[in-house]
């Protein structure tokens, strides 16, 4: 099964990186998450019983690795404000993304994960439920609650 896993990793590395980045919002930690996830996946590949679940299994590893990295970040940054000063004046397009990034950071880890998996990575709600080990109706209600939250946050300005 190892060749399939490696092939999958190579083909999807950019998606994996972007998901990791959206959690930690810096390159170094995002690369660290990607690296940690790959090592873990290969090390524990015997836990993947069916290759059909490779994609959801791998995402499960990424989001959990991201979570432990976030716990580590908390140690160093008490507030995101310190990071904001480094931003150069944004052009419009980036400004919109910046706003969204800020809004996303207001969501809880759980809410954010569901949003990202659904729209970043285009997973079906059923798959999102599998990856996050929640039942479908919880995922649905969390998704709508999070979208509503995002909308309110983006409309505030």
């Amino acid at each position, binding site marked *: 099964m190892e060749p399939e896993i490696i092939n999958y990793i190579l083909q999807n590395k950019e998606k994996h990186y*972007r998901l990791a980045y959206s959690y930690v919002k810096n390159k170094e930690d995002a690369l*660290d998450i990607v*690296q*940690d996830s*790959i090592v873990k996946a290969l090390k524990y590949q015997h836990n993947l019983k069916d290759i059909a679940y490779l994609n959801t299994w791998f995402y499960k590893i990424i989001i959990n690795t991201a979570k432990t990295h976030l*716990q*580590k970040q908390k140690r160093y940054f008490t507030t995101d404000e310190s990071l904001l000063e480094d931003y150069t004046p944004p052009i419009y397009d980036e400004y919109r993304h910046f706003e969204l990034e800020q809004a*996303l950071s207001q969501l809880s880890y*759980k809410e954010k994960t569901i949003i990202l998996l659904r*729209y970043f990575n285009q997973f079906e709600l059923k798959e999102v439920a599998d990856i996050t080990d929640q039942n479908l109706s919880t995922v649905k209600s969390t998704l709508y609650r999070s979208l509503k939250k995002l909308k309110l946050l983006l409309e505030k300005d």
Partner: protein
Amino acid sequence: MKTNQNNNSYKEIEEQIVQYSEHIDIPEELDFIVKRAIKEGKAAPKQKHFNFNKWSKKVAAVASIAVASFVGMTNLSPTFAKSMSDVPILGALIKVISFTQFDYHKETSDATIETPIIEGLQDKTLEEVINNRYLEENKKLFEQFKAEVTDLESSGQSAHLGINSGFEIKTNNDQILSIGRYIVNTSASSSTTITYDTLDKQNEIIITLPSLFKDNSYIEVISENIKIQMLERIAADPTQHYWVEGAPNTDDDSFSIDNFECIDANQAFYISDAGKLIISFNKYDIAPGYMGIQEFEIPTEILQDILVSNYYIK
């Protein structure tokens, strides 16, 4: 609750999120980091602690080759000749000499590989076997590094590559010499591995973990103690994280594929100056990467019943 208007505005947010994801820049190093992680991951399950018996046979067989390549290395590194430096660590006859064998510095890549050389053993065969093994392993490490640099250069990327290997004397008293040899692999993120050798200086034998105990029950006794220590450390400092059953913050991810179960029969270990058994784990073995190398001191009380004697462990 879901009016038409709401659905439309959600659609806008959805599109915005998709766009946002596409605007996250992919760094140059990603490709290299992914490839290196694959290499590391492939090697990970096979990463067993070194087995001395197996090695001594192999090394004895290639001893003459090793000597030959030693000479060859003079050409390999211009700094070879002047980099030998004495680091006497004790007045005792047995000492460890530091020897910077490979030094390689270029704009985006550098390697410093330092090899320990043990001197003063009565048993010259044992001394040679140990020293040849150190030399061979580091030579291999440097060859790998050079291959990676060539790889990276040919792909036209400019990521930073670094390797730093050396040794650390954990214990050196009249009875015990414990040497830890580490390899730090650095680029945008890093990995560290460490292996130990513990030598009984009086009897001139290498001490293995199983040799300390009456039977195999030590694996379970030590593993259970480490699990308790992990939970204690998490309780004392919530930023600490171990992959262990019962750890908090994992209640909603039920992601238990890599929980620590038990140590390897030949788990990396050393004996401290005070005669305590210290068990060591490499980065990623039992905790997320940011936790780095992890060490656990095992209380002698819990080992007392299964120890062969208190000769080494006190």
